């Protein structure tokens, strides 16, 4: 297949044109990293539905669009969501905006990646796999900026917000932020990410997350961009012994969302919790794809995902759990539940367990259904009008997913994101 057929041409041309001007262009290691990524991207282009991991999500609308670079200047006013905490890092069209951020007084280093590429060298590209994930290749080839944060050993980093705003310039544009998150031994952090904004854009972030021994990262994500946005994010997380990575994602807004998470539990007693709620209305597509590697003994993983689909929309859940031979006494659990609110909605659900150890507790389950008629009648028989009764049942379904979240600030923000989505559906109905 040629680059033109897979939609790679435009991005490759941009890389050729920009490569001497991209941040770090004078650093040979980074040039090499980008050049290698370009080779991978040229060879594969955007994945088509013939690729197993992309069987249910069609990137043709992304591959066919002609995106330009964002033009946003580095100053000027943008509409930001209300702050959840004193500390926040703000990115506009993928570029760090120190003037809009408030990072003073944080007990660790957090800065725009483009400003400190030398420090990032050992970590950038340590986890991402551009050879197997074309979107990671695209990101590596063209990233300009991102959040680089490093919480030292034993430090409780508290709460930090990561805000990503896309500003509509009136024509299609693409940005590919690269975020590096490192927690030292026994460090702690809650990172709450909000993606907002609009325009015909491609937001293609890649996260590389390292959680050292005994450290704990809670990562909440609210992907709430406008229904014109393609949001394709890829997260790579590596968790050392007794460390914990908790991810909770609400995907409710973009035209197309791919929430792809690769997590590896590499030390004994590491843990990973991946939960989320994804919602789509008419014409939208949401996809959660997780790949979990149990590569050490005595690790635990929990995954619970909820999907709500309205109108002519489509949802995808793919969850792979790979239990390596050494990973004895693995405790794995995966559940995904979908609620279809219309006859035209479609969900594709694919759990995949590969188990090579013999002493393992691993279970998975999936449910798909419409709103329960008995429950609906029960509410209506008490005088609750049909629309309100439906809303109560949808909210109950979604809120169940949030119950596992212990951080109150995060829980509140996630709940508001869920309620806002439902309120929009009701307003549109």
């Amino acid at each position, binding site marked *: 297949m040629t680059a033109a057929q897979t939609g790679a041409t435009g991005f490759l041309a941009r890389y050729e044109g920009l490569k001497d001007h991209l941040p770090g262009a004078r650093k040979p290691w980074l040039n090499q990293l980008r050049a290698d990524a370009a080779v991978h991207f040229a060879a594969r282009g955007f994945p088509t539905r013939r690729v197993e991991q992309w069987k249910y999500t069609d990137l043709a609308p992304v591959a066919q669009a002609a995106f330009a670079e964002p033009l946003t200047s580095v100053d000027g006013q943008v509409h930001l969501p209300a702050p959840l905490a004193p500390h926040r890092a703000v990115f506009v069209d993928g570029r760090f905006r120190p003037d809009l951020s408030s990072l003073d007084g944080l007990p660790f280093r957090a800065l725009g990646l483009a400003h400190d590429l030398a420090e990032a060298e050992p970590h950038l590209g340590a986890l991402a796999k551009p050879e197997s994930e074309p979107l990671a290749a695209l990101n590596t080839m063209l990233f300009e900026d991102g959040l680089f944060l490093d919480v030292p050993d034993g430090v409780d980093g508290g709460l930090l917000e990561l805000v990503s705003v896309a500003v509509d310039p009136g024509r299609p544009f693409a940005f590919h932020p690269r975020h590096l998150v490192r927690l030292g031994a026994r460090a702690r952090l809650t990172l709450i990410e909000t993606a907002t904004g609009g325009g015909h854009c491609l937001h293609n972030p890649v996260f590389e997350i390292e959680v050292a021994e005994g450290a704990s990262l809670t990562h909440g994500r609210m992907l709430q961009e406008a229904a014109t946005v393609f949001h394709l994010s890829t997260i790579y997380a590596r968790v050392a012994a007794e460390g914990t990575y908790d991810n909770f994602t609400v995907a409710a807004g973009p035209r197309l969302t791919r929430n792809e998470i690769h997590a590896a539990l590499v030390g004994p007693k590491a843990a990973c919790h991946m939960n989320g709620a994804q919602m789509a209305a008419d014409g939208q597509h949401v996809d959660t794809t997780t790949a979990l590697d149990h590569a050490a003994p005595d690790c635990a993983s929990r995954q619970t995902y909820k999907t709500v689909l309205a109108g002519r929309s489509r949802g995808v859940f793919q969850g792979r759990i790979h239990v390596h031979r050494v990973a004895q006494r693995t405790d794995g659990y995966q559940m995904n539940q979908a609620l279809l609110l219309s006859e035209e909605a479609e969900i594709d659900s694919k759990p995949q367990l590969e188990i090579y150890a013999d002493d393992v507790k691993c279970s998975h389950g999936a449910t798909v259904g419409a709103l329960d008629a008995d429950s609906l009648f029960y509410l209506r028989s*008490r005088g609750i009008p049909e629309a309100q009764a439906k809303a109560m*049942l949808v909210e109950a379904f979604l809120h169940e997913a949030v119950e596992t979240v212990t951080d109150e600030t995060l829980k509140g923000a996630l709940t508001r994101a869920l309620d806002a989505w439902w309120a929009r559906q009701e307003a549109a109905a």
Partner: protein
Amino acid sequence: MLKIEGLTAEVDGKAILKGIDLEVPKGEVHAIMGPNGSGKSTLSYVLSGREGYEVTGGSATFNGHDILAMEPEERAAAGLFLAFQYPVELPGVGNATFLRTALNAQRKARGEAELDAMQFLKLARERMKALSMSDDMLKRGVNVGFSGGEKKRNEILQMALLKPSIAILDETDSGLDIDALRIVADGVNAMRGPDFSALVITHYQRLLDYIVPDRVHVLMAGRIVKSGGPELAKELEAQGYGAVQAAA
């Protein structure tokens, strides 16, 4: 008053109610007794408007409203209440939220002021005390993890809060021990008065020792085959449905 005339209904194309005639005057409590499969639950669902129960003939009016033409929530706001034989569990819907939403939806439909959270809690706690229910049942999901008796008490609590003018109690006694039965019966008796009527549907006479009806009707094969005073329930208990059927 509730007035049912020549009511016929089917489920999945099968005729279940074959011409029901029944009047429950204002302020009276009537019992409907009958063996399994006689159409008792179908009658309660038809009157409350559940989907899947198709009315093929006849009429049912309540205080002059043609209730068969109304949505379930409209029937509720007009004062009709169904206590379910199998109350539904609603995980993720808090019992307090559910009760308050229902109460306020009905108040709103009737043009009355809605209750705020504090007013509601005060009212709910008062009613719960009378039903020997712990406050903790307000915090849990609707009927989630409730025992059979707790679910039935939660039904009676809803009735006590919503103050219907007619309640249909569908086998509310099933699965209750004697203490729970007494609490449920006390809850119903506390509602009795000139503005409250009830249709108590039961298989056994036992409940009617505690909720003494003004009239008893025997439902068999989709028809009321016999009506009488409270003594009819005792008669049925002693002789069984077979004797009534033979006589009818």
